[in-house]
């Protein structure tokens, strides 16, 4: 089975809260002292693919859409023994999910036939959680979301996918090819690479394609949506004393004040 795993590089979501700043003009998070890391759900997706390959065989191709520096997350995937890696170079920092989905779809088509595309359920930076679904749409294949694992099916050309729901889990069987968005689970905790494989990952080939090579117009990076305003929410507390002559009058005034507040929300 050919599995493609989409991997996104994001700003480390675990930096101390007080170190986190946003640029309200550019509407993006400031890099500051934070490092760039692999999105955790993408790591879960890669782990799921690695486990499937260990049990069933097949080939894993890692793909990322991002700037030159995103090579790092693909090198990590190679260190974990992904077979191939492709970087689609895109310098636009806040490309919207539709643009990313179109770009990834073009890249995946160029890679060749696939059976399953695994993506993280959402990214730890914007948390939009849309790329997977939109990617399935672009590739015109079914999509299963919030999956925790991937199993072979007795039927050929099909897989079984266990997905989490609000009330429990579902086990679905689907024809391939398909897109699966992966969530975290105790069974897909990302492994760490062996140092020897890390060293060798730098010697492995890594394909880079430009947007132009894929026929994608970079000016459409924010045609689906753009961020209008970006700020860190402030917790504000206001203190107000309710006045009244008697306790009942105070309670009455309090109740009115609360209902006023609720109406204005």
């Amino acid at each position, binding site marked *: 089975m050919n599995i493609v795993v989409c991997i996104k590089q994001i700003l480390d979501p675990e930096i101390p*809260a007080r170190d986190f700043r946003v640029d309200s003009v550019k509407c993006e998070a400031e890099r500051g*002292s934070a490092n760039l890391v692999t999105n955790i759900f993408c790591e879960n997706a890669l782990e799921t693919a690695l486990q499937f390959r260990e049990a069933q065989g097949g080939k894993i191709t890692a793909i990322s859409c991002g700037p030159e520096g995103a090579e790092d997350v693909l090198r990590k995937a190679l260190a974990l023994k992904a077979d191939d890696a492709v970087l689609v170079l895109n310098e636009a920092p806040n490309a919207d999910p539709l643009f990313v989905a179109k770009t990834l779809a073009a890249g995946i088509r160029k890679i060749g036939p696939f059976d399953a595309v695994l993506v993280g359920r959402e990214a730890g930076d914007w948390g939009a959680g849309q790329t997977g679904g939109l990617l399935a749409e672009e590739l015109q294949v079914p999509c299963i979301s919030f999956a925790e694992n991937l199993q072979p099916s007795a039927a050929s050309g099909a897989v079984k996918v266990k997905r989490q729901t609000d009330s429990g889990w579902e086990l679905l069987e689907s024809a391939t090819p398909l897109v699966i968005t992966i969530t975290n689970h105790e069974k897909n905790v990302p492994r760490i690479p062996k140092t020897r494989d890390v060293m060798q990952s730098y010697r492995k080939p890594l394909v880079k394609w430009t947007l132009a090579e894929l026929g994608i117009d970079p000016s459409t990076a924010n045609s689906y949506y753009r961020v209008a305003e970006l700020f860190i929410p402030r917790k504000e507390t206001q203190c107000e004393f309710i006045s009244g002559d008697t306790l009942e009058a105070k309670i009455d005034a309090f109740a009115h004040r609360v209902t006023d507040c609720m109406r204005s929300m």
Partner: protein
Amino acid sequence: MSDPQLATREVLWNISHVWLMYALLVPTVATAAYGIYRRVQVWRRGQAENRFDRPLERIGLVLKYALLQLRTWRKLYPGSLHAMIFWGFIVLTVATTVVMIEYDFGIPIMHGYFYLYFQSFITDVFGALAMIGVGMAGARRWIVRPTQLVYTGEASGILVAIFAILSSGFLIEGWRIAATNDPWGAWSPFGNLVAAASRPLMSVEAMKTAHLATWWTHLLLAFGFIAWAPYTKMAHVITSTLNIYTSRLAPIGATLRKIDFEKAEKLGINSLAGFTWKDLLDFDACTECGRCTAVCPANLVGKVLSPRDIILDLRKLSRVPRGDFAQSYVGTTQALSIEAMWECTTCGACVEACPVSIEQMPKIVDTRRYLVMEDAQLPETMQQALVSVETRGHPFRGTVFSRVDWTAGLNVSTMADALDAEVLLWVGCGGALVERNQKVVRSLAQLLEKAGVKFAILGREEKCTGDPARRIGNEFLFEQLAQENIATLNRYQVKKIVTSCPHCFNTFRNEYPQFGGRYEVYHHSEYLAKLVGEGKLSARTPSDKKVTFHDPCYLGRHNGVYAAPRQLVQISTRAEPIEMEQSRSNSFCCGGGGGMSFIDEPPNQRVNQERARQILATDADVVAVGCPFCMTMLEDGINARRGDRDTKVMDVAELLWQAVEHASSSGGRGDRAENTKPEI
């Protein structure tokens, strides 16, 4: 009485067929030589390593630790019994050589006062001392039975053999004195006792017969022992001396080897093939005394780690005839189990305790290197700490602090802003990112400021020195961090570094030179003691609290710094610190080294709680520390053990700042960091 100038005795009295002795010597020497040759062949299979530089220092070590037995003496009972046997045998060997010179070389030296004082009296007394030593060893091995010893038939056999050789020696001496009516018999007091006891019981003829039989028995025992020794732990007579000669000359903190990642076929070690000849010699040098395991903090709290058994199990593997050196030893025995490898705090107590300079701890780290780098197999929480070091430059995942939060309200500049800074204050991850330790670095910064030191920090440019990565076994990550940090330090042309973390201190002092980073490095206790000595700081209001001092392993044992922190306690309290039952080079680890502070130990096997017991036993008000890891480990340990007692853990810098600060006008502003709670 005749003239003492003429005193001597007849060599080989009562013995005929002397040629038989020489004939027996041939197989004896051949067997012994073959035993040694077999060991040498094993060492030759090891990797190369240069341990023959600086010969004068090495000879000095042999004199100190082999001849004078300074480390063996640290334990009085076994130390004295061993010294008696050891020195007894040295003297007896010299005496036998004197006989050889007299008889075989025909040089008459066994005469006169030399014969009386040395050949008779001293030899006799030392022979008796060796007998007493053997008796004490027997009492220990068969009656007291301490757990640290290894109970083998071989070990018992050695004691019995030595006893038999010595006692037969006294018997033949006694019968010769009695039968020949030796006028100089009294110069051999113990032999003379045998003579006196035999005279009323035996005829001269009977004594001559007994002498003849016992003489040959004595000879056969001695030759047999010589032939057998190289195949037993008695080989230590040679191997331990060699091991002491080739021991590490650098401090324990500089003991880990660099890996050449370009050339290494395997990262870390999991089979005998990975060890150097010196490692293989280590195995053969072991005398099975068990002192390493007896001082191992992990072993003491009930974990499986036993440095002695690691060495002995590896030795056993190295002695398998035509053994496969490429076969993995990991997990083959309990001592070599993966579990044991992840229990070591790298405190170095085993290395320090070994009387014959075996390096146990580095072998554990070598094995960890294999597990981490070739097998990606390590405890999950350690793994998380390393991932954090890799991505964020510090091991404290989830910290709410940045590297500069602790400076709030203080006048601390970064190297980027203070180009005239003479001293880099290396804060360390433990100092900057763990709330309790922020108070320590605040105290230290204020002391430096008060003393007028031009210092600066790296701030956000500071990264983990790599100590936890190296000790956990990720040498690759350590090397990356070392190179990055050295580049940063060199960019600012840093010459002098002061740090309150002994782990960072050790890394700068002993490990970065391997990568070309050479700096003048001070632990803050050394630097503060220097400032006090220069009159730049004075303690005007010393505390009246009773203080004990906990030696951090990476400051004390690993680097030999014991005096400076005690001096600070003395200055801050006007009293010497109370010493715990284990202190200085014999100090007991807090449990946090070697990446162990990133592991959740089983509740009934916590090293820090055992140390807390020792602290509480001193009845001190404060335990002074000099390490951010000791700080958190001991606070946890004491909180678990103290009951309703109020015992505090304080860094030596905090103690000094309290004593200095109260006299000045800047009091009060030192605690502002406590008010800056994280805004989430």
